[in-house]
């Protein structure tokens, strides 16, 4: 019964109402859904397995897409420099990009929400300490921090070992580099909520700060967190692509979209443009639909987001 009630509430909500009246949001959501499903079903949806070296032949390297001369219907979008089917490699690469993006955002959200709640609720020294820290980190820009940390780690442990831990490392470094946005946004909402009567009432009843923060204030701060998360997933995917493009992210044998673009760039000047262009287009579409959804959500939910 309860679930049914929730479903009805959702069906009658303004959120859904405006979604169904915004073609851009609907198309973006549909594309994102298709891309995500295709990416997560990569072993089924991709024609070949790019990680399986036994099926790859260097003889097939740098084949153009099938509608060009020299292309083969076996490889719809052509092959990359090692003879991997480009379409399959892109699907697997997109899966890596999406996983890293989502996990990095989960990490930064967890950190940012915790810090933002504590800083906003307790105020005082804890607050000014964390906000100064956020200021300083933001002034260095998340990408700079991520690039520098990856560069130093790669120099410290060597390329080989770096490649082994690339996925968890990228998640951690992108997650740690971007927590300030969350912390500031959550803190601002907490400061606004804290003054309201229901919080005072909860305090008078004698609830502990922990309970008030998590059960009472946090649920009322969700809409900015929601909007921010959407934009941050796009940011995280973009950061991952940038790091991989610089050779500080996913290695060529397990490429993400960024590393594929990097591989292709070396071959582009000799005419093999497709290795760079197709992953590039896919990356742009992926980021664009997430950004469009984020924009739409910001218009609908209209939270107070931190500027800058």
């Amino acid at each position, binding site marked *: 019964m309860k679930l049914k009630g929730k479903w009805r509430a959702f069906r009658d909500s303004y959120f859904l109402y405006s979604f169904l009246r915004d073609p851009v949001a609907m198309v973006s959501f549909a594309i994102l859904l298709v891309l995500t499903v295709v990416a997560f079903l990569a072993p089924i949806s991709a024609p070949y397995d790019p990680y399986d070296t036994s099926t790859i032949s260097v003889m097939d390297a740098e084949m153009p897409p099938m509608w060009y001369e020299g292309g083969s219907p076996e490889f719809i979008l052509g092959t990359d420099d090692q003879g991997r089917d480009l379409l399959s490699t892109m699907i697997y690469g997109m899966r890596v990009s999406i996983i890293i993006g989502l996990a990095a955002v989960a990490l930064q959200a967890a950190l940012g929400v915790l810090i933002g709640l504590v800083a906003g609720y307790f105020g005082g020294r804890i607050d000014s300490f964390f906000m*100064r820290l956020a200021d*300083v980190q*933001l*002034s*260095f*820009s998340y*990408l*700079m921090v991520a*690039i*520098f940390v990856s*560069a*130093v780690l*790669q*120099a*410290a442990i060597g390329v080989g070992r770096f490649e082994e831990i690339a996925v968890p490392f990228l998640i951690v470094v992108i997650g740690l580099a971007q927590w300030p946005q969350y912390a500031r946004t959550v803190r601002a909402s907490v400061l606004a909520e804290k003054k309201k009567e229901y919080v005072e009432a909860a305090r008078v009843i004698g609830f502990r700060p922990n309970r008030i923060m998590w059960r009472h204030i946090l649920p009322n701060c969700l809409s900015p967190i929601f909007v921010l998360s959407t934009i941050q997933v*796009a940011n995280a995917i*973009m950061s991952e*692509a*940038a790091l991989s*493009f*610089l*050779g*500080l992210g996913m290695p060529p044998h397990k490429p993400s979209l*960024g590393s594929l*673009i990097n591989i292709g*760039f070396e071959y*582009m*000047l000799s005419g093999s*443009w497709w290795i*760079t*262009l197709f992953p*590039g287009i896919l*990356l*742009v579409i992926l*980021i*664009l639909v997430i*950004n*469009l959804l984020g*924009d739409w959500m910001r218009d609908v939910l209209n939270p107070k987001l931190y*500027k*800058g």
Partner: protein
Amino acid sequence: MIAFIVRRVAQAVLVMFIISIVGFAIKHNVGDPVRMITGISVSEAEREELREEMGLKDPILTQYWRFLKNAAQGDLGTSYFYHKPATRVILEKAPATIELVFVSSLIIVFLSVPLGVFAAIYPKNWFSRLVMGGSIIGVSIPVFLTAIVLVYIFSVELGWMPSFGRGETVNIYGWESGLVTWDGIKHLILPAISLSSIMLPLFIRLIRSEMMEVLESEYIKFAWAKGLKPKRIWMIHAFKNTLLPVITVGGVQLGITIAFTILTETVFQWQGLGFLFMEAVERSDTSLLVAYLVFVGLVMVVVNTLVDIIYGWINPQVRITGVE
């Protein structure tokens, strides 16, 4: 005001202190300077002697103090690859990056202000919609992809523009400038456009939303009621107040721009700091990495402190809320 400045400067010094600790930690833990200097044929005993001589066996605080003292005098160690002081290598490459950032900032300022203001004044106009639609696409294209596509179209296919390097440069009092020769400018166009491509949409959107907020405010309504000319209201009354938040965001964006110079310079093999940094990473040139960290950190800290102070000077609200 003075208290505000002192506090900001103290914070800047603290940040530089932390950067120096990070820099020292990297230098201390990553790579072995003795192995970098000597060849394979040098015996273990000689290596030990060299370690002693270089002070690598001193207590860690003594070493840190020496690092700090040298850094304060502009000595950040010797680059293993260039066999030159790292500071000198950095200073030699800095003009290339500064020119690139300068030209792309010009592009950003001269395009984002008119476009953003126009989109704010006429939000329903088709051109504004085009600009806003274009800007969200612009935000979604990674800077290295813009660079690659530009290279492919204008260098590989059309052959109009050179695809890499700085072209002909002229040495003006030790400053290698590419801005005074036609060849240098031609080399600069594509990198500058790529670098500005990510910031431009951000600034257009920022200026538009700030300007729209200002246009809604009471004093603008009063100005209309008073019968002032539209141009005067938009340009003098509204635009001035739009600039305030834009300045602060501009300061923060500098950090991001420097991060993006690494990407742009890698694509165009632009002989600037970003390219130098990536080379240093590939060669594990620790001294150069640390020098880059300290140099870029210093630039960002100085710029951000200045921006904050200027902002506090123009807008007293900032320093008053800062006091509480």
